[in-house]
């Protein structure tokens, strides 16, 4: 039987991994979007164009951060349900709106703020549900 310490420890771990994922994703997307705007060619089905785009340092840093974000998200999938991970990681949209407002001085409409508020409220609501509803013995092979 799981004791309270183990359970709250696992919960803390889930939220730490979530925060790490959100940071990597925000950094990666910003760097990639910034870099891609400087790439002259339009992307097509030609893979060489994507490789050449990665020669841009911002695109390269962005891709590296997004690969780490992908691995972090996989770790998150090992800790929580898909229907838990999807809404809570949507907080990334909220971060994107704030980054756009603060660093790029974008004007944020009332509609966008309302959307941001809904995403945040929804994510908090989902965040209070049991994170893993299919768990059987998932703690069994957790290393110390």
């Amino acid at each position, binding site marked *: 039987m799981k004791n309270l310490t183990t359970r709250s420890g696992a919960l803390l*771990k889930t939220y730490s991994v979530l925060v790490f994922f959100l940071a990597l994703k925000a950094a990666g997307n910003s760097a990639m979007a910034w870099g891609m705007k400087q790439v002259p060619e339009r992307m*097509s089905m030609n893979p060489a164009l*994507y490789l050449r785009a990665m020669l841009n340092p911002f695109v390269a840093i962005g891709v590296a951060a997004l690969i780490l974000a992908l691995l972090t998200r996989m770790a998150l999938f090992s800790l929580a349900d898909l*229907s838990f991970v999807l809404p809570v990681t949507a907080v990334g949209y909220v971060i994107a709106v704030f980054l756009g407002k603060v660093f790029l001085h974008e004007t944020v409409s009332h509609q966008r703020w309302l959307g941001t508020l809904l995403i945040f409220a929804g994510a908090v*609501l989902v965040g209070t549900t049991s994170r893993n509803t299919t768990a059987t013995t998932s703690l069994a*092979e957790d290393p110390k």
Partner: protein
Amino acid sequence: MKWALVAAMVFATVAGDLLQSHEMKRAGEQSVSARGFARLLHVIAQRRLLILGIACNAVSFFSFMALVQTEPLSFAVPASSSSFVLETLLAKFVLHERLGARRAAGALAVLAGVVLVGG
């Protein structure tokens, strides 16, 4: 071309996430320390469906990359979020997750928010 990219992106996202969620639950709990990442890479190397899931991510990623070059983020981001509905339903019926009223309500609020942010 725009909608073909959106379709490719959504299909690949849904397939990739379902495969990864399924496989990672079976692989056991992972961590994100340096050692944790090494262990995770080892897990990936051993599971074919997980590799297929990552390949789906790659398709989704390149579709998104091509999309943001010509379309504004305010189109690309909400378009990519249409996979959200499909995935939540499949999480219930394919992965047998228990949604419950609170999680379903939260997911709906997030969806409405994403549509508003992009609109």
